[in-house]
């Protein structure tokens, strides 16, 4: 978005580091197209080719690519920039983006469930910088049952947002001050936004005990 108007970012890393980085960018683009092509539901027939993600280049990306190498993939889709980041880099990257790059506003934290993938969940942070007027997404893949570091210490707003992700997907956030359900009642079993949770499904036991009716449907 505001890429043109961003001169005050420090220059890219020295040439020696930049070279391999550029190669890496070319390689994952073909070898690891996990991001765009990933869902591919069997029902969907061949569709007209839509827009495809293109590598996102900016001083910001160059800087972090030099630092983190292959753990970091930066793409642009329909003009929106995102980082696909290795899970191990998550707390560092998020903190750096806030502290060094002024991404001071955490817009949203959410997740997407891909049950057929080995690492079933995408966790997505949407962050925005007031000084830069720029929004980026950071996403990472984690396996079912794996946890992810909480970002409450980075952005206070993450508190409720992470609770909602936990409530809806069952993803654990390490270091969250009070990780419990937020929209569903405390004793509820199951996490409704997982793909294996049916649209009519509910915790019948909870409904019977607490509402005194046979079924909520």
């Amino acid at each position: 978005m505001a890429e043109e108007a961003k001169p005050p970012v420090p220059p890219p890393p020295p040439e020696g580091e930049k070279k391999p980085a550029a190669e890496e960018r070319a390689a994952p683009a073909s070898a690891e197209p996990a991001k765009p092509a990933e869902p591919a539901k069997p029902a969907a027939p061949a569709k007209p080719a839509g827009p495809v993600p293109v590598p996102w280049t900016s001083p910001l990306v160059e800087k972090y690519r030099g630092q983190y190498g292959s753990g970091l993939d930066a793409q642009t889709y329909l003009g929106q920039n995102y980082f696909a980041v290795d899970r191990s880099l998550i707390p560092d990257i998020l903190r750096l983006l806030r502290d060094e790059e002024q991404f001071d506003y955490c817009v949203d934290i959410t997740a997407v469930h891909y049950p057929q993938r080995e690492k079933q969940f995408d966790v997505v942070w949407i962050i925005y910088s007031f000084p830069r007027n720029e929004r980026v997404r950071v996403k990472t893949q984690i396996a079912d049952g794996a946890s992810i570091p909480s970002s409450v210490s980075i952005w206070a707003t993450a508190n409720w947002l992470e609770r909602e992700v936990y409530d809806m997907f069952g993803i654990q956030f390490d270091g969250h001050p009070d990780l419990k359900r937020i929209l569903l009642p405390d004793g509820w079993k199951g996490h409704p936004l997982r793909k294996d949770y049916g649209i009519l499904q509910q915790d019948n036991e909870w409904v019977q005990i607490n509402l005194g009716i046979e079924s909520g449907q």
Partner: protein
Amino acid sequence: MNDSTHDASSRALSNLDLETPEKPYLDSNELIINMGPQHPATHGVLRVILKLDGEKVLGTECVIGYLHRGVEKIAENRTYTMFNPYVDRMDYVAAVSNGLGYCEAVEKLMNVEAPARAKYIRVILTELNRIASHQLWLGTHALDIGAMTPLFYTFRDREEILKIFEKYCGARLTTHAFRIGGCQYETYAGFEKEVKNFLTFVAPKIDEYEELLTTNRIWIERTKNVGVISAADAIALGVTGPVLRASGVKWDLRKAQPYAAYSEFNFDIPTGTNGDTYDRYLVRMAEMRQSLRIIEQAVNRIPEGPIMAKVPKIIKPPVGEIYHSIEAPKGELGYFIVSDGSTQPYRLRVRPPSFVNLQALDTMVRGLLVADVVAVIGTIDIVLGEVDR
């Protein structure tokens, strides 16, 4: 059984040493009470657990979810077109804004753009809805604090906006005014004239609300320095909309990242300085006037032309994901949509402004009195339908 209760009470009595009481007569411990979920001032079913020291609030915890309908799950089981009316049911006092955000997000995902005429109609209706939303907020907020009169004034005038909505699309509240790709309905005969009449009708009415409240001593006492939130806290808590602007952050998505046709209009972003309830009131009053400015510019130069872009009957966005957000009356309303190329969203996430803003309640009410909690809940301007989705 009788014995045991008798025993217990006699033991308790014998323990009472009236000469040197262990505890003072009035317990000065902290008190934990429930406000809601059924409470007229919580604007829906919100339960706030208050930790009190006498009348002073030591801390709060919000219990939400009473109106949870699983909107995001429903979206995954509906086609893009079928889901469109559902978004109106989130922030039901600003249904037009919800629809605008959703339609634009899907359009962006499909890489189509609504025609210019549709964009202007969208801007006019959305800004009318912003005024209606602020009017409803003002009426109920003032009622919470004890000023009953503004409610009748604001509802009387809001009616005129709802009449325009009804004439345009047949519905007053959950309007479903827009479609993916543009608008379904052409403006009715006399639409421009009625909107212009409304502008001249409502401008003095807003002055009237201000006459009732702005210099009203009780209003000032109840709102000045109540529920203060600093700009830094507001940003850290992700607060957006008038609450953020009242803390002095001049940020409005209509200016920062213009959507629809907002880049073509002149308007200002009103801001406050103290970040208190009174400033938030002033900001919203000023916003209503800015909305009038936008509507006036838009209605005077609605372009001719089609109102629907070329979109297929069956909407199948290409594989990909998009985040699009708009400045709803309450703050940043965002839609994060993941498409797998089928007719239904693979994942649809709503970033609700009320939900995120409500999280700041605790920061804003600590140290205040119980009666101020009511004022602060009102000033955040939450709609529980959107908080719980």
